[in-house]
C-alpha cells in the first residue's frame, strides 16, 4: 500500500500541554480509500486530527508526517490547508458577522490563488454554492447567515461538508462528523462525503460509533488505543468491535 500512499505518519509522538498523547503512531492513508479510526475515549483520536492540521494546542515531539512525499511537520496550518488537507471540526466555532458565503469564497479563492488559478467572482461563486446547498438539503439563507452563528448542530455539520465540497481537498479528516446528527442530517452529510469519493481523495473518518460507517463504507479500520494504532483490518472488524468492544483487541 505504500506505493499508493498519500499521507504517511511515522512514529508520531505528540503532546498537549505536558501530557503525552500520541506515542509512536504509524499510519498510511491510501489514495482513494476511506480509513476509519476507532478507539475508546482518550485514546488520542482528536489529538491525531489536530496534529495533522497543525493545531496550536499540539506539540510534536517526535516522528514525522509526510504528505505527498514531503514532510509537513513544520508547515503552518494555512499552508497545509492550501495544499489540500481538510479537517471537518467536531465543534465548528461561531464567527459573528462574517457572512458564510463571503468566508467560503475567500477560502476558495485563497486556494485557487495558491494553485495559480483565477479567482471566482461573486456570481460564479454563488452558482457553485447554490448547487451544493441543494444537494445537502440546506436552506438558501445559509448564503447570508453569519458563519456557524446560531446554527443547530446539524446545520454546523452540514456547513462543514459544504466547505469540503467547495474546497475539494485531497485528504479529508472527519472528526466525529456523526455526533449530534439526526438521521436525515446523517444521510445528507454522508451523501456529500460519498460524492467526494473519486478514487484519488483519501478520507480519515474518526468516530466513536459505527453508525456512520453504514453510510460511508470504509476500506480500512484502524484501532487507536493509548496513542498508537494497535490494529488495522478490513471493514469486517466493525462488527467485532460492536460486539466485543476495544478491550478484546490485541496489539498486532
Amino acid at each position, binding site marked *: 500500500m505504500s506505493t499508493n500512499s498519500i499521507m504517511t505518519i511515522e512514529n508520531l509522538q505528540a503532546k498537549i500541554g505536558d501530557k503525552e498523547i500520541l506515542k509512536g503512531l504509524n499510519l498510511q492513508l491510501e489514495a482513494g480509500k476511506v480509513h476509519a479510526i476507532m478507539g475508546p475515549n482518550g485514546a488520542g483520536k482528536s489529538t491525531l486530527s489536530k496534529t495533522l*492540521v497543525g493545531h496550536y494546542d499540539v506539540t510534536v515531539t517526535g516522528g514525522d508526517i509526510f504528505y505527498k512525499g514531503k514532510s509537513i511537520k513544520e508547515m503552518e*496550518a494555512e499552508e497545509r490547508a492550501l495544499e489540500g488537507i481538510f*479537517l471537518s*471540526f467536531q465543534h465548528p466555532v461561531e*464567527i*459573528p458577522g*462574517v457572512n458564510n458565503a463571503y468566508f467560503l469564497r475567500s*477560502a476558495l479563492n485563497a486556494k485557487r490563488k495558491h494553485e495559480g488559478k483565477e479567482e471566482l467572482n461573486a456570481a460564479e461563486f454563488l452558482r457553485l454554492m447554490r448547487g451544493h446547498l441543494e444537494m445537502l438539503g440546506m436552506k438558501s439563507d445559509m448564503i447570508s447567515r453569519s458563519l456557524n452563528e446560531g446554527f443547530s448542530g446539524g446545520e454546523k455539520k452540514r456547513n462543514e461538508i459544504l466547505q469540503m465540497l467547495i474546497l475539494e481537498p485531497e485528504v479529508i479528516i472527519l472528526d466525529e462528523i456523526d455526533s449530534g446528527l439526526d438521521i436525515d442530517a446523517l444521510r445528507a452529510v454522508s451523501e456529500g462525503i460519498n460524492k467526494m469519493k473519486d478514487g484519488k481523495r483519501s478520507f480519515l473518518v474518526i468516530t466513536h460509533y459505527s453508525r456512520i460507517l453504514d453510510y460511508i463504507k470504509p476500506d480500512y479500520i484502524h484501532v487507536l488505543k493509548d496513542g498508537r494504532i494497535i490494529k488495522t483490518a478490513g471493514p469486517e472488524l466493525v462488527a467485532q468491535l460492536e460486539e466485543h468492544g476495544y478491550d478484546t483487541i490485541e496489539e498486532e
Partner: protein
Amino acid sequence: MANEGLDKAVSGEYALGFEIDIETETVPPGLDRGTIEFISKKKDEPQWMLDLRLKALEKWFTMTEPHWAHLEYEPIDYQSISYFSAPKEGLNSLDEVDPKILEAYKKLGISLEEQKQLAGVKVAVDAVVDSVSVKTTYSEELQKHGVIFCSISEAIKEHPELIKKYMFSVVPMADNYFAALNSAVFTDGTFVYIPKGVRCPMELSTYFRINAVNTGQFERTLIVADEGSYVSYNEGCSAPTRDEHQLHAAVVELVIMKDAEIKYSTIQNWFPGDENGKGGIYNFVTKRALCQGDNSKVSWTQVETGSAITWKYPSCILKGDNSVGEFYSVAVTTLAQQADTGTKMIHLGKNTSSTIISKGISAMRGQNTYRGLVKIGANATGARNYSECDSLLIGPNCGAHTFPYLESKDTQGQIEHEATTSKISDEQLFYLRQRGINEEDAVSMIVHGFCKQVFSQLPMEYAVEAKALLELTLEGSVG
C-alpha cells in the same frame, strides 16, 4: 497563538502621513485677544462675529480642562499652539487652488474637480486645509435646489441671519472647555442649509487635513435641515506623521426640523502616533444634534481609527415628539491610542426613541472606553432606548471599559442595555486558517464581522473606505 504575530498583524502603517509641500501663513503660537482679532480680521468677519468670539474667549479663560475621561496624556500647553495657518496660494479664487493641494487630495482619494468624480456618484466636497476651506465643489449645482453648501467663513459673510440664528443654538459657546476654545478660535468648517421639503440631491462631505507644523485645527460645522428635508453628510480627515502632538478641537451642531432627517457619517483617521505614544492628534470634539421638530431624525455613524487621544460624544437631544436618534460607532485603538467615546441620548419629547450600537476594538496597548448617557425627561412618555456596547480585545495588553449612565424621570420608559466583551479566540483564528485563510486576513475577517452592524449604516462608497481603512489600521506590516 504567538503575541508577536498578532502585534505584527495589528500595527498597521499610517498611510496618509505625508506632508503637503506648500507655503503657509501661520501666526506665532499663543492665544489672547490679539490672536482672535487677527483670525477674525484675516477672515474679514463682521464685528458681531468678532464680539462673539471674544466673549467665548473670556469664558474659556475662566474654565478648566476636564479630566473625568479615562484618558492619560501630558498637559496641553495652549500657549504653545499656533491658532491659524493657511496655504498662501489660491485663497481668493476657487479656480486657483494650489495644484499641490489638488494633488494631495487626489492622494487621499478625493477629487476636487467636479468633472472627474467617480462614475455616477456625485459627492460634493468642502476641502479644509489647516485653518481654511480651500475649495467647495458643486456649490452652484446645489444652489439650484436651494441647498447652501459652503465654508463657514463664507456663510458668516453671506448668510449672517442663519448663522446668528443657529450657531451656538445646539452647543452653547461655553458648553464645555473645548467647545469654548473652539468658539473663540474656530477657523473654518462647513455650513449646510437644506430648505423645506428638499432632499439633497447628492452626498455632501468635508475633508479636513491638518498639514502645518505645531498648528491646531479648530473647525466648526453647522447643518440645518428645514422641515421635511433630508441630507446625508460625511466627514473625513487625516494629518501628517509628526513627533509632536497636535490639537484638534471641533464643534459640530445639527438642527433638524419637523419631519426632517440628517445622516451624519464620520471616518476619523487622524495620525495616531507611534507604538510608544509619541506624536498623534489630540482629538477633543463636541458634536450634538437637536431634533427640534416632531418626527425628526438624526443618525450619527462614526468610524474612529485615528488620533492618539479621542474624546468625543456625538449626542442627540430628542425634543420633538416621535423624534429618533441613532448612534453607530466603531472605535479602534491600537499602538498606544486611547479613546473615550460614546453618546448622549436626551429624551424630552413624547414617544422618542434612540438606538446606540457601539463597537470598541482594542489591540496592542490601545485603551478603549465607551461612555454613554441615556436620559429620559419627565414629559418623555413612551420613550424607548436600545443600547448595545460590544468590545473586542486583540492580544493581552489592551483594555476595554464601558460606562453606561442612565437617568430616567419617566418610569414607563423602555430601556434595554446589552454589553459584551470578547476576545478574538484562538479557535476562531484557527478555524479560518484551517480553511487556507492566512492569519492576517483571518483577523481582519473577524474584526469586519464584529463591525458589520455599524458599517452597514455608512453610505456605500464610505463603507468600502471604512473597511479598507480598518484593514490598513489593523494589518499593515505582514505579507
